[in-house]
């Protein structure tokens, strides 16, 4: 039996030059996207079958969440700039943009916690058991918030590796994979914001 065998990919590989890690992240994105789709479709079905539903902005703070959406878009920009920097070999730029992205994610979470606190302490309270609408709101936004938290922790790990000089102009695969996850979190929020807050 031979060991240390290498398996070359066929020349016409359907996934091109994508690494296994990158394909794994795309797969996670598809599966996670379907999870979000399940939540949103269930929300839409419950809404259509419900006789009463609050008007847009009656309970939820649209301007504040629109700002949060804008903030998440900005973090997508800083994340892509982090990748752009390391592709040019700029280590300082990579760290700076990763810190900015992480900070944006933390502010996003802070605003979400403020929103929840306001709803829970306000009179009348707006908690998951208040109505079907409240249940859909909390389940979907909390599920997304946990993704943002995971993303922030993920960025912190990559930032630590960047601090150790692990990445260079020829080695930025991990940063690209992190970027895919972060952009997905932004992409999903666009749909959550539209379906839960605006429609």
């Amino acid at each position, binding site marked *: 039996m031979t060991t240390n065998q290498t398996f070359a990919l066929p020349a016409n590989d*359907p*996934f*091109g030059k*994508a690494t296994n890690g990158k*394909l794994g992240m*795309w797969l996670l*994105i*598809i599966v996670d*996207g*379907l999870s979000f*789709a399940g939540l949103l*479709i269930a929300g*839409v*079905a419950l809404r*259509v*079958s419900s006789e009463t539903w609050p008007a*847009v*902005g009656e309970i939820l703070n*649209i*301007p504040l969440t*629109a700002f949060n*959406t*804008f903030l998440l*878009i*900005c973090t*997508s*920009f800083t*994340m*892509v*700039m982090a990748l*752009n920097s390391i*592709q*040019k070999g700029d280590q300082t730029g990579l760290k700076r943009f990763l810190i900015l992205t992480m900070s944006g994610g933390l502010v996003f979470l802070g605003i979400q916690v403020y929103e929840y606190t306001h709803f829970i302490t306000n009179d009348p309270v707006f908690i998951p058991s208040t109505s079907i609408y409240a249940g859909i709101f909390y389940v979907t936004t909390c599920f997304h918030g946990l993704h943002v938290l995971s993303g922030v922790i993920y960025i912190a790990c990559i930032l630590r590796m960047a601090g150790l000089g692990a990445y260079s102009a020829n080695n930025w695969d991990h940063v690209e994979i992190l*970027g*895919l996850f972060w*952009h*997905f979190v*932004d*992409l999903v929020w*666009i*749909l959550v*914001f*539209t379906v839960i807050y*605006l*429609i």
Partner: protein
Amino acid sequence: MNDPKSIYVKNAFYLAVLTILEVGVTYLSISQTGQIVLLLAFASTKMMLVAWIYMHLRYETKILKRILFIPIPAGILYTIALMYDIPFRWVI
């Protein structure tokens, strides 16, 4: 796939403008169906911009793009099927 910075800046600008337009649509005095169509159109455009420019989907192979896009019509069909089911929920 090392795009110039200007592409990313422009994309962020378009996304911000579309977000403002989305919020603006909720203040328009048009039918609810019209609002939903506009909001979903803006949201779809924003999602495509994020995937295409920031996630560099345009550089991926055709098969990966197909794998990503095929579940979308399936989800839409599922939603429509659920809508048709709703009027019958009290029949049993």
